[in-house]
Structure formats: C-alpha cells, structure tokens
C-alpha cells in the first residue's frame, strides 16, 4: 500500500510541478515539489523507499525535461536515501530539524545535479549559489508545511511512535 501511495504522490507532484511551472512561465519556480515528495516518502517509509522513490521521480523529471537520463535520478535517489537514513538516526519530529533535513536534502540534490552537469560539460552554472539557496529554502518551507499537514491525518502519529520504538530497539532499517 505504501508503494502505491508513494507512486501516486510522485505522479501528483510531477503534475503539480509542471502546472505550476507553466503558470509562472519563465520565472524560476523556487520549489521542487517532486524532491519534497521524495524526502517526505523517505521520512515516512525509510531510506529504501527514499532511494527507490527518488530514483523513479528523478528519472521521470529527466525524461520530461529532456535532460540526460540518470542525472536527476542519481541526485534525487541519493538525497532520498540520505534523508531516510537521517530520519532514522536523528529525531526529526519537530519543525526545526525537519526544516534542516529538507534544506540539506535539497542542497545536496542541487549540488550533485549541477556538479554532474558541469563535470560532463553539458550546462554552465554562473553563480548558482543564490538559486541553490532559494530552491533549498523554498523546498524546506513547503516540506515542513506538507509534513505538518500529513501529521494531521489519523494514524500517522501512531506510526511515528511505532517507528521510534523500533529505532530504540535497533530493529528499524
């Protein structure tokens, strides 16, 4: 069930991102809803879900944007995996740590993406730090709000408690 939910969430995020991008036109959209979804999946379901969800989402973004297939997939899957890993190692039940987690995952994703494209000589990034920071902030804000909304759903708090107990017993992946 979590697999279907994750796939549906990624597809919905792709559509929303595309519609938002069309709405704002050429202006840079300072949020990547797809990455926010991947990190959320990683936090909810663990690092394997983050890895596979990131891979799927990144590949779909690559295909739909006409970029090199795999660069977005690699960067998003790595971000998803590490976000899921961080979610099991640190307490991220408060907004502050979550904000930092989304911020870090977004910055990592952008750094890998830009690094690989620059390394292969396919794109030029002149002074990318402002864009990178803006995108990371946008993602972190949307991520925190999204997670706040998710936690309002019944059953989610119980899952978090179960997960915390598993972590304490050292059985959580």
């Amino acid at each position, binding site marked *: 069930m979590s697999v279907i939910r994750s796939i549906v969430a990624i597809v919905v995020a792709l559509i929303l991102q595309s519609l938002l991008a069309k709405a704002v*036109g050429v202006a840079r959209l300072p949020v990547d809803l797809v990455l926010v979804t991947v990190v959320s999946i990683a936090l909810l379901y663990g690092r394997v879900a983050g890895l596979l969800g990131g891979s799927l989402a990144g590949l779909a973004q690559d*295909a739909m944007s006409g970029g090199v297939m795999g660069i977005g997939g690699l960067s998003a899957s790595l971000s998803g995996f590490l976000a899921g890993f961080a979610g099991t190692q640190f307490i991220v039940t408060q907004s502050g740590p979550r904000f930092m987690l989304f911020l870090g995952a977004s910055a990592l994703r*952008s750094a890998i993406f830009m690094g690989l494209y620059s390394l292969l000589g396919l794109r030029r990034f002149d002074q990318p730090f402002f864009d990178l920071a803006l995108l990371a902030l946008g993602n972190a804000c949307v991520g925190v709000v999204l997670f706040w909304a998710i936690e309002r759903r019944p059953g989610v708090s119980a899952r978090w408690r179960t997960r915390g107990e598993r972590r304490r017993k050292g059985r959580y992946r």
Partner: protein
Amino acid sequence: MALPDTTRRVRYLFVAVMVGHILLISTQVSPRPGVTLLQASLVTAMAEIHRLASVAWGSVWNVWDGYVALRGVRADNQRLVQEMAALRVQVQQERAAFQTTEQLRALLGLRANVPWKMGGADVIGGGASPEFRSAVINRGTDAGFNRDMPVITATGLVGRIVVASAHAATLQLIVDRSAAAAAIVERSRVQGVIMGNGDGTLRLDYLSATADVQRGDRISTSGVDGIYPKGIVVGVVERVEKSGRVVTVVPVVDFSSLETVLVIVDASMPPEAGGPAAGQAAPGGPVKQ
C-alpha cells in the same frame, strides 16, 4: 562480525541503484542522435496524464471564463488574438524574406528563403524540474514533429523540440541554460551565438572584439546552426557591458503566457510542394499567444 541481513540487502540495493544510474548516464554522454526508449516511454505516459489534467483544469476554467465571468467576450477576444497572431507571423516571415531578397539574392545571387511548413500545438505543461526551462506540447510524432525542430510563436523564437513521443513533445526553451542558437544583430549584421542564462534572459556570446552591438538592437537567428532557420526574431539587446563584451538580451516571446506554438516541420519546403505557405499554420491548433 557479519552484518544483519537487512542492512546488507539495503547496501546491495543502494549500490545497484547508483551503478544503474551511472551506467544510464554513460550511455547518453556520447553524442548520439535520437531519443532513448525509456525517455520516450516516460514522456508518453506523463503526457497522457498531463493531457487529462490539462483538460480537467481547462474545463473548469472554460466554464468560468466562457460562461460566468466573460460570457461572449472571450470568444471575440480569442478570434482577434488569433487574427493578430497570424498577421504577426506573416509580417515576420515577410521581413525574413525581404532581408534574404535584399541582402542575399540581390547581392550574392542566392535563392530566396522559401516558405516554412509549420504545425500548431498547445502548451499543456511546464518543466517538471526547476533546473530546466522546458514545456510540454500536446502533439508529437503523430503530427510530424521530431527532435530538433524549431518552435516559434507569432512574436519570435521559443526553442526546439528535445523529446518527441507519439502524442506529445518536450520543448527546450531558448532561455534554458543549455540552449543556444546562431544569431545575428540585424542592424550591424554581426554574428554570434545567443544562449540562455537560465533566469529568463539571454546572452549574445562569441562576438568579435570590435563587434558593433548597441542597446535596443534586435537579434534574430542567422540560420548557420542548421537547426533554426534564418530570420526568426529572438530578442532585443538590453545591456552591453563593454569591459567583458557581455551582451544581455531580453527575449521577445513572453514565456509566461505561452499557450500555443508553431513547430517548423520543414524550413526548406519549396512553394510548389503544396504545403502551407509562410505564416500559415498547418491544421492542428489555432495561432495565438
């Protein structure tokens, strides 16, 4: 000490996914024409979802715009916009033909540019990744659209097709970081390469040290890159920094209101071939922006 079985499996999976992506990237880095099967399949699948989402969204707004808010006015407006856009395309084509006639055929004895065969398409989505400036249109190879075909509107250059599937295509907008086109300054005939900055503006690069470029100069395609035909307006020079020869250009196309585009299917079709003449879109979409 042996690792727990779960941890080991996760590690194997992680390595497999990473290696898979690296292999996938490596298959595409070497220049090779065409589109991968995976890319085409994903674009096709997502395009169908896009189409449904776009239709659903469009239906809601159509009810509001067409019947509730602006009953009657919208239809008139659409007709006028279409007429105006068609006339703009015609003027643009005629201007290109005039330049060719005056500067190439009259002086060098070359043949005049022949009309372009074009097809219309609606923009149904934007870029799925914030790093790219791209758009999705609702027609693909079924309408004769293929990779690297130039895309324009009534006002000027939009970009080119980078992925074409059966019923949809992805456009790389000219303002994307990796987009480029051979360009010419219309006033001084200086040639260069127009490139996207990724922030909505363009820059004119590869100019000679003595190039004559001024603020307000109009930039159009020069046709030497083999993708974009000559004479399509790209933008207007906004700023010239003499120190580093940095020329910033503002695109003439308003990408925030991009609804319908024209794809140049054949830029060298002779008039007697019987296709649509310059400035006329092939069936498939109204001309508006």
